[in-house]
């Protein structure tokens, strides 16, 4: 399962893993902006950007092939759109958009694979993202797999009762499943709230201490910016 692997990757101890989340997020943005704004003659810069990313993966002691395969998930969609561009007579542009989308997916993956979720959320908050939004995202992520599993089990149970073989019935049965899943999710939210209150929650999430920056962080940011600037120009 992907998220399990991603969790494991994010708990590594390489140079990259140890960098402050803020710095990594900013580096990602710098990289993405550089890629996005490189227009003409994308062939060489594209390769160089790719090399930087692979270098990052190696420095992070992450499996390069595994990561690239994961990033390739973006390809079916971008290839379809690119095909349209190709047909409209712009093959170079088509190739460029596919490369760019792959570079972006790989870069985002590198960030997430070197930053455990709590630190990533903290970093985003310190960079100005509203805490309320981040906490909603945290809860969504936390319960995503729990509820997906519930949904899966309910569907299996319905299928065992022949739910698939009556077209109209299949639709209704799916709607009913979602209705029940909704209700169960709502009740789960109530229980979560109950256990929060039982442990003294009074309406405000308190945080653990904020991490501080070290010279290596500044160095990393500078290095990324420099590399990217060189490629860009």
């Amino acid at each position, binding site marked *: 399962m992907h998220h399990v692997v991603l969790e494991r990757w994010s708990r590594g101890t390489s140079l990259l893993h140890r960098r402050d989340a803020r710095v990594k997020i900013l580096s990602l943005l710098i990289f993405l902006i550089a890629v996005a704004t490189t227009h003409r003659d994308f062939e060489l810069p594209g390769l160089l950007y790719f090399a930087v990313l692979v270098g990052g993966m190696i420095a992070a002691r992450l499996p390069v092939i595994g990561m690239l395969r994961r990033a390739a998930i973006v390809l079916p969609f971008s290839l379809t759109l690119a095909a349209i561009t190709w047909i409209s007579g712009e093959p170079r542009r088509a190739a460029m958009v596919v490369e760019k989308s792959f570079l972006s997916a790989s870069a985002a993956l590198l960030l997430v694979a070197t930053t455990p979720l709590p630190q990533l959320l903290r970093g985003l908050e310190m960079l100005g993202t509203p805490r309320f939004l981040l906490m909603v995202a945290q809860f969504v992520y936390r319960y995503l797999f729990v509820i997906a599993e519930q949904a899966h089990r309910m569907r299996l149970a319905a299928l065992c009762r022949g739910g698939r073989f009556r077209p109209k019935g299949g639709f209704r049965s799916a709607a009913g499943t979602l209705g029940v899943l909704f209700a169960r999710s709502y009740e789960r939210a109530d229980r979560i709230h109950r256990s929060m209150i*039982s442990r003294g929650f009074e309406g405000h999430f308190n945080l653990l201490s904020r991490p501080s920056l070290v010279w290596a962080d500044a160095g990393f940011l500078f290095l990324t910016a420099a590399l990217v600037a060189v490629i860009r120009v």
Partner: protein
Amino acid sequence: MSPVIIARNLHYKYEDGTVALAGVDFDLFPGETVAVFGGNGSGKTTFVLHLNGLLDGQGTIEVCGLPVKSETLKQVRQKIGIVFQDPDDQLFMPSVLEDVAFGPLNLGTPPDQAVERARIALDQVGMLEHQHKAPYHLSAGEKKRVAIAGVLAMDPEVLVLDEPTTFLDPPGQRSLTVLLRGLPQSKLIVTHDVEFARSLSKRAVFFEKGRIAGDGPTDRIIEQFRWIGL
């Protein structure tokens, strides 16, 4: 010594009119472990929810000498720690450590100390090495232990566990029994599992139709209400 839980004439009716508690009197003495039996809908969970003020019925409840009222809820919730049935409902933070530190932080403990208390609690339940893991990667038994640690980190005097062996396999149940035996707090354990109850508690109460129909030695209660499994 005075009881750590005193409940007198507790009544509670749900919004739709269902009577959940019809006059409950109960004492929990310091150091005791009491098992709570009863069929589904007999009122035992409703009773538990009154102990830390989640529900507010008629009658009186005192926890460690504090009457359970809106003014005292914060202290009450520190004194009595409830571990609910599904650990997934309790472990909602991204990492084990953060989740266990949640309670102390809510009590106003400064972050560094909260982390320290969390680590001590995790160590008590044998889960310290997993402190940085994400909760959904843990097994049911591990999650249950972390949930207990989350409550222990608040330094309570009373522990209440609602159906703790649900989701646990026999080895998990055994190690939970060992863990609970080693904890000094007074305990109230709501359970369907008769053997589990026998291994931990000398006294049991039996809920029926919103009242306590029997209160005495565990074996006698089991016999009296024929609360037998296979």
